[in-house]
């Protein structure tokens, strides 16, 4: 079931909420949890009931492994059990997500002809796999107090975050699920949740879906090596960059809003990523919970021992940089690329971002040694840095969207002027054509939206007075936002929510899937 469907908004959500609060009113934690878990499994099974078996199997396995881990004393046995547990999770993900890719490439490389039926990627498997790996590591460290199978099921399946994140930690969710206050009907939380949900829905169905019209045709043309002009290539890439942001951050908003209707706070997942001043900053603002996961469970475990080795042997700065940053960053982003999809485009996309980050770090080291006691690392100036970062991201998303490396190359070629500028600026026709192109609805829409992602406050900033998500304390609120764009429970904002919800509901007729459903 999609969040942006009539079935979800008009039937599933109201029934789940009413059921929840009528049971929860009796302060029966077990029964309320059971209701939520059943609703969430129904939500999951709506898509393909068969895969219910898979998710239940995965949850049961991890719960048992977790329990087993917690009985062991620290030592090799415990370590190997953890490794086994992580391995089980990764094999499941590996089979469903990468088997086809692997066999296809094997056939290509060594000219064999193995045949494997196309395996359909089970919904959400990338997300619940990561979430449960984190859980096992937390158990291993002794950070988790176990609260029974039902509560564990709730932690994994809670429907707002089940399908596409945010990727949550056991220790940030469990205390909320166990707090009596969470089970009390709160009109305040319902109002806040509905507002956040409506903003997310609007981002998805009104903005992202409409802008996708300017993306698809150009990328399809690229795959068959058709002609793409310089301007069309840029427009399509910019449109996709905007589409992906509004789609995925809209999804995250909806998840956060839905959870809030049940008085649960999810962690923040987006913080205006296109306002980033550097690529390092970008990854602190884009899909925050994934970056958090990869930093803790991939980057640091590689970087720490390498740095230790480097420093113990007194290697020079250059080698230390390679050990602490370059190698671990490239591996982390390679895996991040693979996580996003089993395809060469994603691998190259990941490596490209890895290189971006390494360059960004190199630049910082260089800057540090030449300008001691500097005030800011962004000496290009705040706005120029933002622009350069944005362009680097736009180029990378061409790879993210293209169906093949070939298609990406065709678009990138056009963007770098490979097909000429096509419009003869000197001639009258050329100027007229350019004028017509810039006034076309698509171009105007894209320019407006770039303004929005560069300057407008984000959902968390609008809702900041009401703690919209976990870990929002460190987001900055500009003075301008403070006066104009601060949500308050008054008629003005109720009208705002009503209008965006109404427009979104009308646009639901043309349902499309979320981009991140496929990951």
């Amino acid at each position: 079931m999609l969040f942006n469907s009539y079935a979800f908004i008009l039937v599933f959500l109201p029934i789940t909420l009413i059921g929840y609060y009528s049971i929860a009113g009796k302060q029966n934690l077990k029964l309320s949890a059971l209701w939520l878990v059943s609703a969430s499994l129904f939500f999951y099974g709506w898509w393909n009931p068969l895969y219910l078996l898979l998710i239940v199997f995965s949850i049961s396995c991890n719960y048992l492994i977790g329990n087993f881990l917690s009985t062991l004393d620290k030592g090799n046995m415990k370590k190997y059990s953890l490794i086994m547990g992580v391995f089980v999770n990764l094999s499941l993900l590996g089979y469903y997500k990468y088997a086809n890719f692997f066999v296809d490439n094997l056939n290509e490389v060594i000219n064999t002809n193995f045949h494997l039926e196309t395996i359909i990627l089970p919904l959400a498997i990338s997300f619940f796999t990561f979430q449960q790996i984190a859980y096992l590591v937390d158990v291993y460290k002794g950070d988790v107090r176990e609260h029974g199978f039902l509560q564990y099921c709730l932690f994994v399946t809670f429907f707002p975050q089940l399908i596409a994140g945010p990727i949550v930690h056991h220790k940030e969710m469990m205390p909320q699920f166990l707090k009596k206050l969470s089970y009390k009907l709160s009109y305040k939380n319902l109002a806040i949740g509905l507002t956040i949900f409506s903003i997310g829905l609007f981002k998805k169905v009104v903005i992202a879906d409409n802008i996708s019209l300017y993306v698809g045709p150009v990328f399809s043309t690229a795959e068959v090596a058709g002609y793409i002009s310089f301007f069309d290539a840029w427009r399509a890439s910019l449109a996709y960059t905007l589409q992906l942001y509004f789609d995925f951050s809209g999804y995250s908003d909806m998840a956060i809003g839905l959870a809030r209707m049940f008085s649960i706070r999810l962690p923040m997942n987006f913080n205006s990523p296109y306002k980033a001043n550097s690529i390092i900053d970008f990854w602190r603002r884009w899909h925050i919970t994934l970056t958090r996961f990869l930093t803790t469970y991939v980057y640091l475990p590689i970087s720490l021992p390498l740095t230790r080795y480097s420093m113990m042997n007194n290697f020079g700065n250059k080698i230390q940089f390679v050990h602490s940053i370059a190698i671990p960053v490239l591996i982390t982003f390679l895996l991040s690329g693979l996580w996003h999809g089993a395809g060469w485009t994603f691998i190259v996309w990941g490596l490209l971002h890895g290189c971006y980050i390494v360059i960004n770090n190199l630049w910082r080291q260089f800057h540090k040694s030449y300008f001691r006691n500097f005030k800011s690392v962004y000496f290009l100036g705040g706005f120029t840095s933002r622009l350069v970062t944005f362009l680097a991201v736009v180029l990378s998303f061409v790879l993210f969207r293209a169906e093949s490396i070939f298609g990406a190359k065709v678009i990138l070629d056009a963007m770098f002027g490979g097909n000429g500028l096509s419009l003869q600026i000197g001639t009258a026709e050329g100027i007229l054509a350019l004028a017509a192109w810039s006034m076309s609805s698509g171009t105007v829409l894209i320019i407006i939206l770039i303004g929005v992602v560069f300057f407008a406050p984000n959902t968390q900033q609008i809702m900041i007075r009401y703690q919209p998500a976990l870990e929002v304390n460190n987001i900055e609120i500009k003075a301008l936002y403070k006066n104009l764009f601060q949500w308050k429970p008054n008629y003005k904002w109720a009208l705002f929510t009503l209008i965006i919800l109404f427009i979104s509901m009308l646009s639901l007729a043309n349902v499309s899937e979320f981009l991140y459903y496929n990951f």
Partner: protein
Amino acid sequence: MDNNEIMRKVTTIFQEVFDDDEMSISPEMTASDVDSWDSLTHIRLIISHELAFNIRFDTTEISELENVNDFIVLLKQKIS
């Protein structure tokens, strides 16, 4: 090792890693307060303490630190 001694040693390590002889540290200080505190200096900081105090940090331990105080608490736990 008493508290003062630990703090003196920690301060010296910070000064070395950040290459700033006048640097002083306070419990509330976070990475965002210091311009040159990036992932590279962060990891160097951790390992320098490991070598100086002859201890080992765990990856998950260091990813949870919020400020200098958290770090010092963790450090003292490791020493004792």
